[in-house]
């Protein structure tokens, strides 16, 4: 799979292609389990079977899983700063757009004009992160799911949510209920408890890189993840909001310190087309 002769730009193009056209194995397995839980002729089963068929077709053809190829967020090890520059990534994004691996998905917010190459100031999003893993990670997150992301400030009287883990639980279930099928359920919640308004959304999004089958190292959060997953799936919202047993595929919760005055609970909702990818440079 890895060819040492490929340039960094080619490697990034390959990462975009694989991320846009295939699903991570843990997500695919979770969708398969969800389908088997539903009755043969049920609406939920039809939706999930269509999703699984879609993944097969897209992977086989090498075409995007979803037409909303989303916001592209790259996380690059700072050790790769020179090899994988923002310009390198931008070139790969423009080429991927030409090839139809990405939709012309970037709009100038002031003029309303479409940016045909998907490359301009602020797009794609590139973060250099302080690690020595020589890795580039990519999250492609569609707008429908991003619109369902939300931030709560505790206490929240309407939810009966105070500044404790029970309050967090209430926020998360409220977010899932509000999202119904709009964010393309069954989805995945990336959550941050604490932080400030900006750092919390960044951390919530980073949680979405965790595998569905991993275990949270913080026992309180591990317990809350399992409970919210179970309870969210009892709401009956189901795939695409047409009813069913699986509303969420996973809940991933991280925490950041906060100041005494603030207690934010931040939710990044990700659709079933959970397109995350990663490559490692030697």
């Amino acid at each position: 799979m890895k060819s040492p002769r490929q340039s960094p730009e080619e490697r990034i193009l390959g990462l975009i292609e694989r991320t846009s056209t295939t699903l991570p194995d843990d997500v695919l397995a979770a969708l398969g389990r969800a389908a088997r839980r539903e009755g043969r002729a049920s609406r939920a089963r039809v939706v999930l079977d269509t999703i699984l068929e879609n993944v097969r077709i897209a992977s086989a053809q090498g075409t995007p899983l979803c037409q909303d190829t989303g916001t592209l967020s790259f996380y690059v090890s700072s050790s790769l700063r020179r090899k994988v520059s923002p310009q390198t990534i931008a070139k790969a994004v423009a080429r991927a757009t030409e090839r139809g691996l990405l939709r012309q998905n970037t709009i100038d917010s002031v003029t309303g004009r479409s940016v045909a190459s998907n490359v301009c100031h602020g797009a794609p999003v590139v973060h250099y992160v302080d690690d020595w893993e020589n890795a580039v990670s990519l999250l492609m997150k569609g707008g429908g799911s991003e619109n369902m992301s939300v931030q709560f400030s505790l206490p929240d009287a309407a939810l009966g949510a105070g500044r404790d883990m029970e309050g967090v639980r209430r926020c998360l279930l409220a977010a899932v209920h509000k999202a119904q099928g709009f964010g393309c359920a069954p989805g995945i919640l990336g959550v941050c408890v604490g932080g400030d308004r900006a750092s919390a959304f960044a951390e919530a999004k980073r949680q979405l890189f965790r595998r569905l089958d991993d275990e949270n190292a913080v026992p309180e959060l591990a317990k809350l993840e399992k409970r919210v997953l179970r309870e969210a799936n009892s709401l009956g919202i189901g795939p695409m909001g047409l009813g069913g047993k699986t509303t969420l595929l996973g809940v991933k919760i991280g925490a950041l310190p906060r100041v005494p005055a603030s207690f934010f609970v931040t939710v990044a909702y990700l659709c079933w087309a959970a397109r995350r990818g990663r490559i490692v440079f030697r």
Partner: protein
Amino acid sequence: MKNLVWPFTEKDVRALRAGDAVLVSGPVRTGRDRFHKYFADGGRLPFSLKDGALYHCGPVVVKDARGEWRVVAAGPTTSVRENPYEPALIEKCGVRLVIGKGGMDSATLEACAKCGCVYLQAVGGAAAVAAKSVKRVRSVAFLEEFGAAEAAWEFEMEDFPAVVAMDTHGVSLFEETARVSAARLAAIC
């Protein structure tokens, strides 16, 4: 599975019930955020939607080597954003099928009952399945102004699978799910 073939008549549409699985064949016009706002602001449409299908979709389209449009991915986008505009569009343009995902509000449901229109839910994210149903691009409007993702593409579609989620009899599958899930949420919080 019921086959819906263009032109979509009022009689056909009124015979549908929420929950019916359908296959749509014929010309289908995409229109999403920019298109709806343009119409609401009094913009003129260079095509007819009478007895037609309007699809909330922003596709991935590329030009092939022969210079012809090829649809690579074409799943539905979230429909709620068009709630403020859809009833007038259904009424004035004679749309019979609105296709999208996530459902629409009670005003749209009323317009469906009044004018003879149904809302069909396609599977969100299932862009490759939807693209397979697009046989060719018949035409495109507003490509320059709105960009490829927001342009009004006219697809020739064959056997596009969807579910009737809002019918002409005032039934919405989404209202049902919202009601059931709200009751369950109240029980555990």
